[in-house]
């Protein structure tokens, strides 16, 4: 094991190097580009024995990875924003074919106008695509999650592609110390590639051909069921990873000071760190509040939310994306989860913020969480939905 100062993007490149997928295909886009640049450098210098397909678009990047994965290879790609949208057709194709592979999403807001700053809109835009969707909070987790993603994806109880998100620039281009596990150990832990079927010419097989509604529905229903089993697999993989490499995060969610909390702030991604800082301050002031951070958005951690949010007095959800005309996507799913036990519904509030890269500080979080708690304590109805803007 070595320790290196790495940007989030390079942490992902190093994770890929440890895994050594046979095929990598990617197309440049800010803020993802430095992942594929680093990987190209590793491949050309002989440090990494992977085949790099230098495609002409993101649609082709994912298509090439799909082909490689069908043919029995581990495959990896990475993209952002417009690139992710451009490959969206293939995003669905891969999961519906139940082909394991891994993609890094370095989040950047969806354009127009041209804007390269991060929010979660590109990531959230993929939420119905049948991929396992993970999101890291720091560079170390970006590396760990990328390695774990291959293990989760290839688990026979899952057999679904996995995307790992980080925010561009905030993590993508910010350097932090990162522990890099031993390469041999990672490979040993991953074992040989596993997938439900292989197209290698050894016997005739048809993939993705014309299928009647009932049989097609069976396939899609299978994805829904595997999403449920994936919850167990994700937790198991996280525990195993902890034993092997010394870091464990707690599965689908991370619970920060929420064991004894009366109030819960829910978030995902790098700004959760700022939120935790705010919570520390509020704790000092006597507010019993904790953070529940989503590490996985799909499968949605319904059980974790029921357990933690279901026994709290109030839950405030911070979304860094918005479904125009409705709410933040995490909030919508959270409310749907809690509605399973309507008798225990806590006070609820959704704050959409940090859109298009607007910077949200721990002071902002402190103010917003405090306002929420105080309104509940006073017996007032808290703000149900607010788009928090700084101008």
């Amino acid at each position, binding site marked *: 094991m070595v320790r290196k100062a790495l940007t989030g993007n390079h942490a992902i490149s190093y994770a890929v190097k440890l895994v050594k997928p*046979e*095929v990598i*295909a990617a197309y440049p886009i800010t803020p993802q580009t430095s992942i594929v640049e680093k990987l190209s450098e590793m491949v050309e210098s002989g440090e990494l024995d992977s*085949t790099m*397909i*230098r*495609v*002409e*678009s993101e*649609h*082709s*990047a994912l*298509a*090439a*990875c*799909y*082909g*490689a*994965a*069908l*043919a*029995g*290879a581990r*495959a990896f790609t990475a993209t952002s924003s417009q690139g992710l949208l451009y490959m969206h*057709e*293939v995003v669905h*194709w891969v999961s519906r074919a139940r082909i394991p592979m891994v993609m890094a999403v370095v989040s950047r807001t969806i354009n127009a106008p041209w804007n390269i700053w991060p929010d979660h809109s590109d990531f959230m835009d993929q939420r119905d695509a049948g991929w396992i969707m993970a999101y890291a909070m720091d560079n170390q987790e970006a590396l760990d999650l990328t390695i774990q993603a291959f293990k989760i994806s290839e688990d026979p109880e899952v057999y679904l592609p996995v995307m790992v998100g980080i925010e561009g620039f905030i993590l993508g281009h910010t350097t932090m110390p990162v522990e890099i596990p031993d390469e041999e150990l990672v490979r040993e832990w991953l074992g040989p590639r596993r997938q439900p079927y292989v*197209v*290698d*010419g*050894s*016997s*005739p*097989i*048809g*993939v*993705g*051909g*014309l*299928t*009647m509604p009932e*049989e097609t529905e069976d396939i899609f229903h299978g994805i829904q069921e595997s999403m449920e089993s994936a919850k167990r697999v994700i937790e198991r993989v996280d525990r195993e990873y902890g034993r092997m490499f010394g870091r464990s995060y707690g599965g689908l969610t991370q619970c920060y000071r929420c064991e004894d909390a009366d109030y819960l702030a829910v978030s995902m991604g790098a700004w959760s760190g700022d939120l935790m800082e705010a919570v520390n301050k509020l704790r000092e002031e006597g507010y019993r509040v904790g953070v529940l951070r989503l590490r996985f958005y799909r499968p949605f951690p319904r059980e974790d939310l029921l357990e933690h949010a279901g026994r709290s007095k109030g839950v405030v959800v911070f979304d860094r994306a918005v479904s125009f005309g409705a709410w933040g996507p995490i909030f919508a799913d959270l409310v749907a989860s809690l509605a399973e036990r309507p008798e225990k519904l806590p006070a609820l509030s959704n704050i959409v913020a940090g859109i298009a890269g607007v910077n949200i500080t721990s002071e902002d979080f402190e103010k917003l969480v405090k306002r929420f708690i105080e309104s509940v304590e006073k017996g007032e109805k808290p703000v149900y939905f607010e788009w928090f803007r700084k101008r």
Partner: protein
Amino acid sequence: MAQARPKPPIPYDMRDSFLPGDAACSGCPIPMGWKVVRAALGEKTVFVIPACCSSVVVGVYPGQSLNSSIVHVPFAAAPSVASGIAEAYEKRGLRDVNVVVWAGDGGTADIGMASLSGAAERNNNIIYIMYDNEAYMNTGIQRSSSTPRGAWTTTTPVSGKTEQKKDVAKIMIAHDVPYVATASVAYPHDFYSKLQKARSIRGFKFIQLHAPCPVGWRFEPQYTVKVARLAVETGLWILYEYQGRRLTLSGPSRPYLDPSKRKPVEEYIRMQGRFRNIPPEALEDIKRSVELNWEWVKKLI
């Protein structure tokens, strides 16, 4: 003119490669082409097929009329999926599997053009076959950039197509790939030997297969081969191979280097309902493009 028999002849197991139960219209050129591809390339062939008539012709799950592996892919994705498969085989040391893209003219000349160009430029080890039925047949006969001038389609319903046919084989030649050829469903032996040639070459191979569609071109289904043959005999569709920066005229087209041997273009046009209302200037334009095409061939042979 008598046609020389290629050696070796097409094996009789050709029929075993295409099984009963396909969903093709009668007279469809697709199974004709598949039989030859499968006979030439053998069982260890993976067909990558984007959205097109062939996705339907192959039949409905769990059946499959083509006795090979088939990977169905999004409309614009075939060349890139095939690139990924080919690179994975390379990495895994699987050298005896042929990766074939089988795509229509729409999937090739229009929506798939960028990914086709990308795979060609990267020289990925695949055989790309564009079966050219000169329109989007799967969605009900809409124009493609490979539809000839003057042809009726459902998106050129009144005046016929006003633009000329895009010449994809020439575009592929401009990519300087190791092998480019044209073929026709009317000449299976010629197509067979081209496939064998393509198989022996590493890198990107492109074959444009002229494939008359009775439904879209408006002729009786028993005339598919006749229409395809007339395209060659009128000199309108020229069979050639391009390799090592040289063009070789293929046997069936050789006589037509001499314009006096060519049948009148009208014979071909008159057989097809899609040209029923062809404006005279469009017909002249087609004739002119035949001449220009032969001029181009002469420069390269």
